[in-house]
């Protein structure tokens, strides 16, 4: 990987790899940068150690010249000298002058052109702040966002919204479904712990859960693939059999055919939250035993089982919303490993591929969506717990 999203594209357009420094390919690259808006500065201001170098001017240079000028500025502590050396090289008519851009010692280049360096090094150590104005990448991104545009993907050339459309749903459904599934499994386990905490079965399950918490998700994913997919019990790649895809299925059949593909990913999504949540709900249930209504219920002759199902559970589960709201965003980061490994067309896999292409618009959009849903879930959790627990409302007022 490199930090240049257009390197491959330009290589294809401009011929072989060695022609990177040709004038034509440099021209193409500059044009691509201009179209993508990458020649602009990143933000309203820049904070840089290249004190004398204006980052705005620096960003406009083609990649190889920019790198050289940057390196030389570091060496000399003086941007003006570095720029002058660059101009000298461009003006000269040495046949392979582009090689000079790769020379690390600017002193050698200066000697070559009889240029007198002004050794002015102290500027290297003063970080400077530059005001770039409104013509910057963030501002244009914000303005585009206001108009509902997320930009164009560098890798595919399609609008980012089109690229995302096919991918967001799976991650969201897996996230929400995984959260609900883990709660539905964790509650019975927690109740079993609460009622029969001292039995041997409970202790065995507890130890098992303790080990499950510790296993990192990427290990779990490969373990699942090894145990179930390699012997051929369950499919492990994609969402639908490519053969089945060609048959004219109805919607219902399609869903049924997809289900086996989702078994392993959903285990990978939920195993650790089941372990964490069941222990958490168990402590919540135990904390309710100190409440007065528990003692009253016992003295009225209710059994512990009846009390648990009718009174304890509804009271104990109130703090759960906050925990679920914190768990939900983790589905987005968890999806990176799981979707990549199970080859599911979701946002996590998209993010990883766009990172390897340095596809900034897609990365920005992915993070925007993640941030949006995280904030939304925090807000929702706040509202739901206020709705469910009138005591919180009265506290606030």
């Amino acid at each position, binding site marked *: 990987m490199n930090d240049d999203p257009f390197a491959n594209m330009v290589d294809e357009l401009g011929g072989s790899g060695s022609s990177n420094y040709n004038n034509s390919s440099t021209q193409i690259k500059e044009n691509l940068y201009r179209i993508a808006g990458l020649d602009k500065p990143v933000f309203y201001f820049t904070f840089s150690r290249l004190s004398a170098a204006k980052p705005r001017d620096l960003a406009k240079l083609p990649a190889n010249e920019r790198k050289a000028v940057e390196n030389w500025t570091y060496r000399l502590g003086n941007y003006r000298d570095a720029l002058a050396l660059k101009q000298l090289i461009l003006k000269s008519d040495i046949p392979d002058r582009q090689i000079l851009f790769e020379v690390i010692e600017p002193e050698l280049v200066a000697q070559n052109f009889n240029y007198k360096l002004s050794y002015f090094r102290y500027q290297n150590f003063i970080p400077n702040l530059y005001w770039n104005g409104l013509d910057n990448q963030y501002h244009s991104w914000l303005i585009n966002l206001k108009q509902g545009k997320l930009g164009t993907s560098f890798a595919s050339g399609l609008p980012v919204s089109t690229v995302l459309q096919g991918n967001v749903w799976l991650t969201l459904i897996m996230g929400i479904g995984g959260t609900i599934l883990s709660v539905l499994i964790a509650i019975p386990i927690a109740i079993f712990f609460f009622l029969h905490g001292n039995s041997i079965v409970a202790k065995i399950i507890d130890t098992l859960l303790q080990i499950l918490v510790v296993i990192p998700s*990427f*290990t779990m994913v490969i373990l699942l693939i090894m145990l179930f997919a390699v012997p051929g019990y369950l499919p492990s790649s994609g969402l639908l059999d490519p053969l089945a895809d060609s048959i004219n299925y109805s919607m219902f059949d399609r869903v049924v055919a997809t289900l086996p593909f989702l078994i392993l990913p959903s285990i990978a999504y939920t195993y650790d939250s089941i372990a964490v949540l069941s222990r958490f709900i168990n402590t919540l249930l135990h904390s309710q035993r100190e409440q007065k209504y528990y003692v009253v219920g016992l003295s009225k002759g209710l059994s512990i089982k009846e009390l648990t199902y009718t009174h304890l559970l509804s009271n104990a589960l109130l703090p759960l919303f906050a925990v679920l709201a914190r768990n939900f*965003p983790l589905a987005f*980061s968890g999806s990176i490993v799981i979707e990549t490994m199970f080859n599911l067309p979701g946002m996590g896999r998209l993010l990883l591929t766009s990172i390897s292409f340095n596809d900034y618009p897609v990365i920005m959009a992915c993070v925007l969506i993640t941030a949006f849903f995280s904030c939304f879930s925090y807000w929702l959790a706040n509202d739901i717990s206020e709705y469910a627990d009138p005591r919180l409302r009265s506290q606030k007022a």
Partner: protein
Amino acid sequence: MSKRNKLPLILSITTLGFFVLMGLFSGLLTGRGHLIPYTPTEIHLNDAVRLKPFISDHYLGTTILGRDIAAGIVTGANYSLTIGFFSALITLIIGIVLGIMSSLSWRVNYINRRLFWPAVVLSIPYAVVSTGLNTGVYADNLLDFTLAILSATCIFGILIFLFLMLGSVIGGKKTIPFKFNTSISLLIILLDSAPKLLLLVIFIGLLASGNIITLIITISLLSWIGVTRMIRVEIERQLKFSYADAAVSYGISVPRLIVKHILPHLYPTLIINFIYTFIGAIVSESTLSFLFAGQMGDNVTWGSIIGLSKDYPDDWWLLVVPSTCLVLLILSLFTVAKHFSDKAQIQNQYIK
């Protein structure tokens, strides 16, 4: 405490000590003429040695390139533990400083609450990619990398502040006093609004560098949130006790009270936080080297060995050996942390 309760602790400290010794003396253990007669990056391409479970002096098997896994495990322990220890240390220092600062209140300005969430949502992607862009240029220069991340963090804060000030200019009626505490909690919520691992994957993926210092800085700059929050809550809880009141009535200043009298009470909490950050850093590091196996330099780590088993799911030792080490290390750290949390609980009963 009964004798039965101490057995897991002793076992886990032994395991931990084993891994620490392995990591410390990784240079002495691997290489020709040592206990493991191979270096982790050494390649043996003949078919008798490639991708075999346990043969003669390859004690834990070999990878597809014929690299010795035992040597990889030893140097991987060094890599993981170094990253875990130093990022936990830096995180703890940042956490203590910010925690103390945020438990003191300095009134600065007034801001609007209504624009807060939009501000968070809008500034996060920018911050991520700008750091990526900045550091992409400076990936080889450590000082500039640090500066880029620091400036991105500054920009986060300034951006949010600008949004909120804008809100109060436009005319929201609901304002809250802007304390230093508020600004830190703004930063916390901001970094919290995207999962840590997601940001880490983007940063390190764009950097494509396995440089140990880069990883430590990135991990610790992303994981101080929990520690800061915990320390702030603990300090605020301790400030309500009567010993704090007594000290204040003697005329001691609040910062001095916090540093001299409250911090010593927090040491189990600090150690628990240290261990949890340690675990988080190790898991993040191995997830990164799993995802970007081969792209993050030539380091052999536990995560990168597990990453190899993506392509060879039949060869179980590629998964089992490093995973067992990882799970054992995390499990023993958890057990030690649990010991300290029990201690903290007992201690809390006596503070008044």
